[in-house]
């Protein structure tokens, strides 16, 4: 127990010379009379040192594995905070918003409608009007794209938008961008429900291939999280990162097979289009849902092109996992500088 400080022996304070500012320094005698456990006083007093020792242990190299484990343990320990932040973001998004939850459906719906308008225009030119299957395909891919774009848009500013929290409290910073992704995931889930109701009207039938949605959606979430983590980190250090992100958000859709199919470019073109890490995920979703195609089988596409091969799935999976793990690592390596740079 602590006593209200007062009556104990005065310790002899002896002056030490050499204080860098010319002030007198003092070193107190080692303490001997104290009933509570001692505060260990080690190291130099008197403020003599002007430069740290050039020791190796301080700048010892940290292994990737240690960092990754540390990040995982920390995130797990703070999982309830992740839930709280996600909840908060969802609440804020729909608080004082005139049409509330309708936004969750409205945004992807606009994307779908613009896709349909575009397909109709192309159809008039080529003379081949889009059928129900094409329309359903555009809708499925639009939803996936809307999720990616939405998460990236909210996530990029998630660190810089929480200046007070970052500089004043500690928690694994990755929670903020991840919460943005989870918030967007809820919106996407509402969109999926709406889509599930709409698809039968486009002649889409239930099939076992639809189970492919689960791994594909998982990979899409991993990839989106990875990109969002990198974008939010970059945005801390230079604010032009958000302009770059803005470009991706506005024009990325033209370089991604959302409104069109990858095989529309022919054999070589399709392969190039599929280099985009999201392309195989979106195309895979379309084929599995709309065409009921088993993704373990290759599929011939327009002209001589290949609409699908299992290789695409592996390619996308490697991208998604690398992006996720790599970004967590990058994030962890830089997050301790956030408070100084934000």
């Amino acid at each position, binding site marked *: 127990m602590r006593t209200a400080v007062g009556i104990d022996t005065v310790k002899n304070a002896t002056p030490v010379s050499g204080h860098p500012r010319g002030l007198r320094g003092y070193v107190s005698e080692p303490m001997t009379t104290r009933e509570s456990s*001692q505060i260990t006083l080690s190291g130099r007093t008197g403020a003599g040192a002007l430069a740290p020792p050039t020791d190796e242990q301080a700048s010892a190299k940290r292994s990737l594995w240690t960092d990754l484990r540390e990040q995982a343990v920390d995130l797990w320990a703070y999982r309830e905070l992740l839930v709280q932040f996600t909840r908060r973001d969802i609440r804020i998004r729909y608080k004082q918003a005139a049409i509330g939850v309708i936004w969750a459906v409205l945004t992807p719906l606009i994307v779908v409608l613009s896709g349909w308008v575009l397909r109709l225009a192309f159809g008039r030119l080529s003379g081949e009007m889009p059928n129900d299957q094409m329309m359903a395909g555009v809708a499925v891919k639009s939803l996936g794209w809307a999720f990616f774009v939405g998460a990236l848009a909210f996530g990029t500013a998630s660190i810089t938008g929480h200046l007070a929290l970052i500089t004043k409290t500690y928690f694994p910073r990755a929670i903020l961008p991840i919460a943005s992704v989870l918030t967007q995931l809820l919106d996407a889930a509402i969109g999926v429900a709406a889509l599930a109701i709409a698809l039968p009207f486009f002649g889409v039938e239930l099939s076992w291939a639809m189970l492919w949605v689960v791994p594909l959606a998982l990979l899409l979430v991993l990839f989106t999280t990875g990109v969002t983590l990198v974008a939010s980190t970059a945005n801390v250090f230079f604010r032009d990162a958000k302009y770059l992100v803005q470009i991706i958000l506005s024009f990325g859709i033209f370089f991604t097979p959302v409104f069109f199919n990858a095989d529309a470019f022919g054999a070589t073109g399709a392969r190039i289009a599929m280099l985009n890490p999201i392309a195989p995920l979106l195309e895979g979703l379309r084929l599995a849902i709309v065409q009921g195609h088993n993704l373990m089988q290759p599929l011939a596409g327009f002209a001589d092109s290949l609409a699908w091969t299992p290789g695409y799935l592996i390619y996308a999976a490697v991208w998604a996992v690398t992006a996720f793990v790599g970004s967590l690592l990058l994030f962890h390596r830089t997050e301790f500088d956030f408070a*100084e740079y934000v």
Partner: protein
Amino acid sequence: MAPSTGGGIGHVELAHVWKKFHYGEVHNRLRDFIPALVRRALGRPKRSDALWEGEFWALRDVSFELNPGDALGIIGPNGAGKSTILRLLTRILRPTHGTCSARGRIGALIEVAAGFHPDLTGRENIYLQGAIMGMRQREIAQKFDEIVAFSGIEWFLDTPVKRYSSGMHARLGFSIAAHVDPDVLIIDEVLAVGDAAFQRKAFDRVNELVQRDIPVIVVSHQLDAIATFCTEAILLEAGAISFRGSPRDCIAAYLQRTQTEATQLGSTAILLDRLTVEPNDHAVSGETAHATVHCAIRDGQAPGSEAVGIRVRAVDTGEVMFETTTNHFHEALPTTGAFSVACELQLNVRPGMYIVECFVWNSMAGHERGTGLTAHMRVSGGDQFVGPVHMRPRVRVVSAVPS
């Protein structure tokens, strides 16, 4: 974040900690940044022992260790690195060199409302802020009523925090932070929250937390708080520990430093040589103390309209408690040579730390010619009264006389 086990596991250690900061803008060019980022991602930070242009050491070789039951006070002027130490302990920053570890859940009475979102209600913010401070959902739910009752905002629980007054905001933040059940407690100037009634409640709560068997770190400019709560103290100057010892010795050393900086006297005929206060350490509220100023008249000058003054300030607030000069007592000063001014002071003040200052007063000019020496004085006792002034009461109980 380990769940609290109710004390005993808390442990804090800083070992030869160095922390580097930058002046001004940093990394505004991609050219500098990308290589730095790549190096960091590869785990090869650049040699961090050298100082580049625009960098300085905010902390230099700071070491201390705290076990359960220890309470360390950190004092020092602004910019000495006090907050940097706290930010290292709360893991917001990492040391450039050395190691910094805090075991157990840290309860930080710092920036207690940092996580509040203005659009969320008080209820929602309690859960959010609690989670930021490391509490589990279940735990918050358990303590919810207690937190609300402590903050006294029951009526506004379902009002968005943006409509709160600043006092309500701070009170709610403090209430959440004060219910964390920490293994390590960190306190930074939070004792001035809300109105007088809440401040007393907050002080009692902090006192109760400090009495637990956990390591405590207190940073404050209210030296009284340091003296009350701590078992040890360090004085931090320009990022380095320049004194360690008991809180009282440390405060004395700190006050001595401030004194050396303040001894800039203008051209006065009176030379202030030495100031003593007796008793300076165990003065008792209501008793008398003797302050003696040893002075001399400078050769070839005359005191003229100059007088010697004495002033008493409270350390915690800096407020002037009392001030007088030889002039007020029509005491004439000698025209040459050394002399001393003896002043008897009735310490009708509440217990605490006080600074006694002496100065030269020019009654013609009507102003002070610079503050001279200072001495500190610790007043204890005073358990027979509450309030700022000792009114020297005489209390008798008179039994009713039947008529």
